[in-house]
């Protein structure tokens, strides 16, 4: 049967030459205004939120919907819109800054370090579990449903081919090509 190639084809856009500094995690903060992925695979400028807040939100996004076959850039793309929203809406900015500060506070109390530097996903998920009914968590989780899963770039990584009418549908492209069912 015809299957979909799910391999990652992230273009490594080198916005910055070097990973300047920062944390032990793969998401770094550079020059106080940029958030950057591992090895400079992607980077974004943050204008309204604190860059450390955005970095934590991106990690939080991955911890809420962890897909090991998705690079951080997809999570970053799902979250970057909050920076512009925060620029226009003071309530949202407050919700996000306070939410992240409290999450960091809980992480420090339990692990002696901020959320981004808590090493195990399981430990970070426990911190999220404690706030899962809060409006901060629910806003981030709810937004990810479309922010992450409605990115056409991620569909192929789940083996989903998206629009088909422009390709003539599947009548000649494997709508009935399953070959492993035993009678």
């Amino acid at each position: 049967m015809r299957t979909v190639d799910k391999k990652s084809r992230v273009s490594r856009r080198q916005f910055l030459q070097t990973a300047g500094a920062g944390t032990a995690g793969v998401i770094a903060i550079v020059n106080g205004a940029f958030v950057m992925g591992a090895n400079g695979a992607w980077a974004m400028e943050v204008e309204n939120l604190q860059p450390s807040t955005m970095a934590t939100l991106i990690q939080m996004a991955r911890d809420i919907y962890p897909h090991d076959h998705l690079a951080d850039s997809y999570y970053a793309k799902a979250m970057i819109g909050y920076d512009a929203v925060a620029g226009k809406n003071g309530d949202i900015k407050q919700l996000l800054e306070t939410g992240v500060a409290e999450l960091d506070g809980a992480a420090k109390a339990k692990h002696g370090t901020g959320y981004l530097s808590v090493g195990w996903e399981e430990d970070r998920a426990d911190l999220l579990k404690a706030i899962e009914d809060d409006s901060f968590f629910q806003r981030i989780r709810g937004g990810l449903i479309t922010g992450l899963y409605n990115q056409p770039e991620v569909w192929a990584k789940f083996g989903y081919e998206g629009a088909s009418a422009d390709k003539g549908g599947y009548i000649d492209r494997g709508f009935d090509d399953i070959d492993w069912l035993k009678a």
Partner: protein
Amino acid sequence: MAKTYDLNDDSVVVIIGSGAGGGTLGNELAQKGIDTVILEAGGRHEIQDFENDEWGMFGKISWLDPRTTSGDWRVAKDFSGLPAWIVKAVGGSTVHWAGASLRFQEHELKVQSTYGGIAGANLLDWPITLKDLEPYYAKAEDKMGVTRTNDIEGLPGNNNYKVMKAGADKLGYKHCHTGRMAINSAPRDGRGSCQQIGFCFQGCKTGAKWSTLYTEIPKGEATGKLEVRANAQVLKIEHNAQGKVTGVLYADAEGNQQLQKARVVCVAGNSIESPRLLLNSASSMFPDGLANSSGQVGRNYMRHMTGSVYAVFDKPVNMYRGTTMAGIISDESRNDPSRGFVGGYEMETLSLGVPFMAAFLNPGAWGRSFTSAMDMYDHMAGMWLVGEDMPQESNRITLHDSKKDQHGLPIPNVHFDDHPNDIAMRNHAYQQGAAVYDAVGAVRTFPTPPYPSTHNMGTNRMSEKPRDGVVNKWGQTHDVANLFVSDGSQFTTGAAENPTLTIVTLAIRQADYIAEQMGQKAI
């Protein structure tokens, strides 16, 4: 060029809504030479406007006006502002329906006699029998081009169907096939055949699936006897001192109020808006709402017992390829109280794309349990479970006591509590659905909770006696002779089958009656 009618023309039949009920009725009346105006709240999006994009089309065609929910149903928790997943556009929900076209079973039209007393259920026999409906079912199947009727071949089975069929065979189910679908398996009636595109819920790009948008409505317009006014949100039905309806007040595309006079008014706005309109049309003569002397307007809201089962296999399925509802198992649709519930349910394949699967597989869930399921998306098969739910008086559409819509009218609240029979049936259906997939080696199955209601029924129900319901066996309101209900809200009970075929059937039958009554000057 389609005919247009003057607002002061009081000879016209005005139909509110252009979906399976309103769109069909409009064409049927026009074919008989009756001057007809359809007022449709939504816009007119033709096939070229359809996109293979789940959220894109959701935003474009869904009914997203504010609504509230209450009751213990899970939809009230997961989708509190979206009780129903229906369409606000010319063609109504026939734009996004899947196409399953099943006749009701004989006993499902007389459930009070068949099931007896069920505590908490407001059961009632329909005032019509299967025999009354059969000639009209035949006309509807021919009109819609339903596969496996009228010598029309069944559709070919896709991967999702093949998994279901293999499991059904292993379990010993005898009635599994690719369905009776209003989707062309070969060109018919000026429309092409199914190209197995998928995206049936987003509007059929080839028109192979029947929708009033590109069948009934243009056919009616071609007679010169039908005008369809899009972006016309009806606010109130007006009546005279004799208690006869005289016209319809609506807001046009610019938000200006217009009054279209009418000889007859037919309400077909789906089972939330139709009772809401009758309730919002209360007057000093009808203080509890129009046609509501029984107090039954808005009550007995039904939405089918639903749920889904998705299953993961160790090899790929690619269920999204091809028709969304690609096959059916009917073995559980019988009434067999030994299973612990009355009534029955159908099992119908269903697939969602990645965007909708993320939203509906297990709403609110997060973490590895959820994402490990999503990671196996291309290895999933899926089915929808749809069965008869019990009518309950307290499951009802009411007017919100403070929230208003953009026109200043109270928004509807949709209250629904599951009946114990609904819960017992759902649990049985989850178990059997999982068994179908387990039989062919599923490694994991998911009992997925109900989506917002696509099958909305029963809020203006049909009854022999005026005290038990809102309309008679023709869909004519008991209280007002020239006011009709023409959508699924007239269903006395819901049966196990998808409602569209029966809505179309009742509309064809109602058109004959309206024409006869107009001919006799009775209305």
